[in-house]
């Protein structure tokens, strides 16, 4: 039983990180109907921003940790908005395939510029938050896991408030439902799209820090696998659906951790993708997604 709880806890903290990244994929899909493949590399840049800020702040303190977290979120938000402005906005109105290919290009650009600027050798992420283990009987919770769960929970509540309680959040939903009608009530869609990229990228930045706290070896290609998993999580939950992305992330992280702790651990990634295929066979729109007919 405690073995089960332990795995569940580990799974949820991994899943929380997938969920944070998945939210960015799903929000951008919501407003622009394309998958921003560069999102996973924004996650990587978040970890590196954290790495550099982490050298300057006191180690093992909550304050230092928060500075690193907020710095990475802010840096990534700016990076995400910059990518949108320079690479995607000029393609507004172009075929989705063109934007998709551009996104892959931006992804490669970030990965290999990362190798130029940060070097290809993995670096050790500093221990910015206090790191101890809490034991409850057989159950061991690391303080970094607590940080992951608390930060993720707070960010998700914050996101929910922004999306459902603010004017810009309502505008985001409106643009996602009908971009033309949004323009006709006076929404500047470019501003909303830019805001969406900023918001999603900030979450990816937070994800990068939380991931690096628990897997403290960072390199410019570190975003590829978690990014792919988060993308799977977003599709699993129903692409474009915010609660779906959160659910998909938690589910995928949990399943992956359980498989990892079993005799089939070698196949953990294969199993993650097998789940995607099976769920999509039965629910093509994802767990919380609604089947919708693309409007012409």
């Amino acid at each position, binding site marked *: 039983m405690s073995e089960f709880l332990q795995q569940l806890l580990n799974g949820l903290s991994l899943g929380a990180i997938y969920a944070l990244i998945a939210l960015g994929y799903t929000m951008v899909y919501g407003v622009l109907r394309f998958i921003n493949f560069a999102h996973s590399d924004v996650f990587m840049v978040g970890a590196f921003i954290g790495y550099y800020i982490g050298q300057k702040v006191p180690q093992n303190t909550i304050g230092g940790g928060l500075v690193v977290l907020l710095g990475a979120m802010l840096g990534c938000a700016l990076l995400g908005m910059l990518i949108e402005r320079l690479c995607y906005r000029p393609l507004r109105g172009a075929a989705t395939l063109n934007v998709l290919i551009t996104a892959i290009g931006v992804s490669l650009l970030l990965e290999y510029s990362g190798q130029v600027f940060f070097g290809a050798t993995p670096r050790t992420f500093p221990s910015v938050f206090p790191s101890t283990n809490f034991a409850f009987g057989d159950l061991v919770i690391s303080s970094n896991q607590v940080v992951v769960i608390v930060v993720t929970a707070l960010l998700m509540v914050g996101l929910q408030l922004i999306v459902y309680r603010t*004017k810009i959040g*309502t*505008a985001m*939903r*409106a643009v996602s*439902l*009908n971009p*033309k*009608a*949004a*323009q*006709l*009530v*006076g*929404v*500047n869609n470019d501003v909303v799209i830019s805001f969406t990229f900023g918001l999603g990228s900030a979450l990816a930045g937070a994800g990068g820090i939380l991931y690096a706290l628990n897997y403290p070896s960072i390199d410019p290609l570190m975003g590829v696998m978690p990014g792919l998993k988060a993308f799977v999580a977003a599709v699993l939950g129903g692409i474009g659906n915010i609660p779906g992305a959160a659910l998909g992330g938690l589910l995928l992280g949990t399943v992956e951790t359980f498989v990892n702790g079993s005799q089939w651990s070698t196949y953990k990634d294969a199993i993650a993708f097998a789940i995607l295929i099976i769920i999509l066979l039965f629910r093509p729109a994802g767990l919380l997604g609604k089947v919708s007919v693309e409007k012409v």
Partner: protein
Amino acid sequence: MLTVQNLEVCYGAISALRDVSFTIEAGRIITLIGGNGAGKTTTLRTISGLLRAKRGSISFKGEDITKLPPHQIVARGLCHVPEGRMVFSNLTVDENLAMGAYLLSDKAKIAATRDYVFSIFPRLKERLTQAAGTLSGGEQQMLAIGRALMGEPKLLMLDEPSLGIAPKLISTIFEKIVEINKSHGITILLVEQNANLALEVSHDAYVLETGVVVMKGPSAELRANPELKAAYLGG
């Protein structure tokens, strides 16, 4: 109030409007009638900035708005109720109305406009917390008009408000359009396929055919015109 001059609009190589000119004076109800593909919807979309004119100009209250983006055109008091209603289906009626006032910040004024919208369409008040997608076609049309009114328009453009609506509700909606014009002095540009109805409620009319204005005049006169009768009014 609105002057459209020699408007030409193309979709790729196909020209949808070839040469459209008309003027609207403040306080009037003007209608554009014509068959499918005549360019009625294209005209409205170009005025509201969703489409770009290849040639020609649009001026609103003396200002050239031909090249402005849609959100700046809305800000000047020109609101467009699009064809097919385009309500935000997953948002509640309340949120849809709030989106209509997106560019406004005076809370007291917004509340007053909301009350005005409810006085015209009491049905909306009963449906406040319902998702807009669950409303009937007629109710969605009321919401689309209500949402546009929330933007405090000087000129309201309505694209096919009778489309896909139960016959019983069509007359209600047209009565409300007249009421909006009379009680608040809002100028109205109405596009309709139902020419009979459009000529009945409007002051002046323009007839469009394949992207060109082929006839214009006071609606009452056009209704009596034998040519028009044969073409659009069912004999």
